[in-house]
């Protein structure tokens, strides 16, 4: 019962992650939404599997996989963002910057 509830939460967050990857234009926003939502989906699916089998050695192994992912996923996101920033991708989109400037001039 609890396991099915966590699986349903993971469906919602998987859908949000795929939609957000196509919705945003800037690379940094994509990194933000993808890493956060992927972590929540991972967390909920592994908790669902742990609740399904109870307390065994395999559940400890599942929690070890979860711990490894929680350590390495932010590292990967930080490496990708830092590499994009060093190689000259601007932090703000040129389109949104020009729109903001026009709104400031009009006001």
């Amino acid at each position: 019962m609890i396991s099915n509830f966590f699986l349903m939460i993971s469906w919602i967050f998987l859908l949000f992650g795929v939609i957000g990857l196509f919705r945003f234009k800037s690379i940094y926003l994509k990194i933000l939404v993808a890493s956060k939502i992927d972590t929540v989906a991972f967390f909920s699916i592994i908790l669902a599997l742990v609740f399904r089998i109870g307390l065994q050695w395999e559940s400890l192994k599942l929690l070890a996989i979860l711990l490894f992912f929680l350590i390495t996923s932010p590292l990967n996101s930080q490496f990708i963002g830092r590499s994009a920033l060093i190689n000259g991708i601007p932090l703000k989109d040129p389109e949104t910057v020009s729109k903001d400037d026009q709104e400031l001039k009009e006001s």
Partner: protein
Amino acid sequence: MIEFTILLLLMAIGIISIKFIFSPTIWERILALNLISGKTVLLLLLIGFQRDNFFFLDIALTFSIVGFLAVTLITRFLMEGGRQK
């Protein structure tokens, strides 16, 4: 429930693969690779639970280590200028 989750994960991997092939810059491709590796670990875990075969847990742990090393080494290579240096 587990079968539907496997189906949804396969659809997500397919849609992200389109993003992986048709992205303009290389960092978006590495981001898609990162997402695909994370979802593959989940897929291995769910297939192992559906078949009642717990050896898939070890394979999933190994695959997560390999995915982390791939993304880290490629980004370290690109951070110092890549092939144009």
